[in-house]
């Protein structure tokens, strides 16, 4: 019998360009905030899972979980690094969740971090592209923006997504970023400025046709952390409202896009979501707030449909109609999403869970807080849809 698992502490540092901090500094800051938030005091944890995609490449540093437990004086806790591309964060939480649910560990720290800004944008793009197929994709120069561009073109043709819809996602998420102190991009943009004015040709140039500059998330440094424990333990020690991990799902798809019957069908997103909803005994319509993986604006629209918030072809219209805004039918990315909060790849999946925890604990400013939020949902998108991890989170009310 698996145990229920709760989040009792969360921590995050402002994402952006943190030249003064090392990767380990950032992981330590976020972890200390989460441990403080959990009110653990001098009490240690049984295990630490660290989500990171690229320290070996970007920092020439490995074994960062071992380094982090020592830095945090959490010895002799078990420590592992979890690498699953941009879905590393959610994968690490899933590993922590299973460890606690199994009964083997009771208190687990999960930290995710990435330091991407110490290399040029070109090198950061190349680093992310290392998750493409090493024989049939990477050698031919494909990048994730390139894949997203092709995906967008197909999605536009098949489902009638328009530039206006993509622009609406960018505007909404950058507006939310201005309200989030953790967001990398705190700059509101307008349709006039990035689309309507003739000057938009420079303001918002084509990046990977039909995607433009403001369809892309920034390259960021950042870290986030959560503390997990059994629900029974949470009832005894939690100092803040526990958030239950009510469901999770993980599914994979072909490594290469070309092998998919229909490249517009994000099967792994649908499967992972279904698993999470079934486990939580909830439906998409029961979710009050969601954090979706909008590394590119098209992904917020496509994921909102594959998760089941909207029918296929309806996600873009929903954005235009304001259904994904605060107080809309399903508020999506009230943090600003990857688009504005930023996308330090190893941190993102953890940051999504931190944000939903803030929402379910009702701690946010009213400009971002979804009123009376009880159920939250996350999608962490690995590869180009080939490894997806989702969570359904629920505010625990005794």
């Amino acid at each position, binding site marked *: 019998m698996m145990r229920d698992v709760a989040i009792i502490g969360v921590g995050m540092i*402002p994402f*952006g*360009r*943190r*030249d003064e901090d090392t990767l380990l500094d950032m992981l330590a800051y976020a972890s200390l905030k989460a441990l403080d938030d959990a009110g653990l005091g001098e009490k240690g944890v049984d295990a630490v899972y660290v989500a990171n995609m690229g320290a070996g490449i970007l920092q020439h540093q490995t074994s960062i979980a071992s380094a982090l437990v020592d830095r945090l004086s959490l010895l002799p806790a078990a420590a592992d690094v979890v690498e699953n591309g941009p879905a590393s964060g959610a994968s690490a939480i899933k590993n922590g969740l299973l460890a606690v649910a199994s009964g083997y560990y009771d208190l687990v720290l999960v930290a995710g971090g990435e330091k991407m800004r110490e290399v*040029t*944008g070109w090198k950061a793009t190349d680093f992310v592209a290392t998750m493409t197929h090493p024989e049939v994709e990477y050698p031919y120069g494909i990048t994730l923006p390139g894949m997203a561009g092709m995906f967008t073109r197909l999605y536009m043709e098949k489902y009638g997504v328009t530039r206006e819809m993509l622009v609406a996602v960018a505007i909404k998420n950058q507006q939310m970023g201005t309200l989030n102190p953790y967001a*990398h*991009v*705190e*700059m*509101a*943009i*307008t349709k*006039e*400025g*990035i689309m309507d*004015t*003739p*000057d*938009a*040709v*420079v*303001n*918002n*140039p084509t990046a990977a046709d039909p995607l433009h500059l*403001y369809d892309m998330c*920034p390259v960021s440094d950042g870290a986030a952390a959560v503390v997990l424990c059994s629900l029974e333990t949470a009832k005894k020690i939690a100092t803040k409202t526990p958030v239950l991990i009510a469901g999770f799902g993980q599914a994979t798809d072909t490594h290469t896009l070309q092998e998919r019957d229909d490249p517009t069908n994000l099967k792994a997103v649908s499967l992972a979501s279904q698993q999470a909803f079934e486990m939580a005994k909830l439906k998409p319509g029961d979710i009050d707030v969601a954090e979706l993986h909008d590394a590119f604006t098209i992904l917020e629209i496509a994921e909102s449909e594959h998760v089941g918030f909207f029918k296929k072809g309806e996600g873009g219209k929903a954005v235009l109609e304001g259904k994904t805004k605060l107080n809309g039918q399903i508020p999506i990315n009230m943090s600003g999403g990857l688009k504005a909060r930023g996308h330090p790849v190893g941190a993102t999946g953890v940051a999504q869970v931190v944000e939903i925890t803030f929402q379910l604990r009702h701690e946010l400013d009213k400009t971002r807080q979804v009123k009376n939020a009880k159920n939250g949902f996350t999608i962490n998108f690995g590869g180009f849809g080939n490894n997806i991890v989702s969570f359904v989170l629920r505010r625990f009310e005794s």
Partner: protein
Amino acid sequence: MAIDMELEEVLRAPEVPQAKYPPKVITLANSKKMVVREVQREDVPVLLKAVRPTINVERDYYDIVGVRLYAELLGWYRYRVRNEYCLIGQVDGYLVGIVNGRMLNEKIGISLHTLAIDRGLRVGSHLFASKMEHHIEYLGQEEVRIVAESPIGFRRWMIEYGLELLPDVQHELGGATAYRLTKQIYYDTKPRLVVGKRPVPKTLLDEAMQEIKIADEKTITEKIAGVKGR
């Protein structure tokens, strides 16, 4: 500072008359209107106040760009640089970026520096484009010689414009590899890189001309090198 005008006659660089850059307005990504206009020598002391804080910012080579721009503007102010000009960008009267250059001779222009104070809005791209516009369309030159002192500059100028390599020419900024923008390259890239409207509405121009507002030193440094800095 006391100035001996007799000696100044000897020390001052001779100049040729230069066509003026007509101001224009550009709508930025946040809908703010940036007025791009040429400033006069008398405006330099105000500009130096904005450039000075950048001298200590190591991020993205602002230090070298800042210190050189400071020297170039001061050189112009003191009549020690020949045929220099300076364009600025202003939003709500505030200085958001500076570019400068000079005429080497009637046919050849020299691009000196581009410094964006507000980042993330492509202010630098717009101002650099305005500088190229000035050299080719208003000063009537055949080419502009350019070097990049930062990776961002290299990406923005050499790659986005597809500049021609000038392997045997040493740019006056030093030994860095020199490139040139020809008339042909300018007009080929103009549709995607050079924007803006003229004339500038009177209220906007009046606001810009009335005062070059400068953010405080802390704000300038934070805009360029803070955690949110891009």
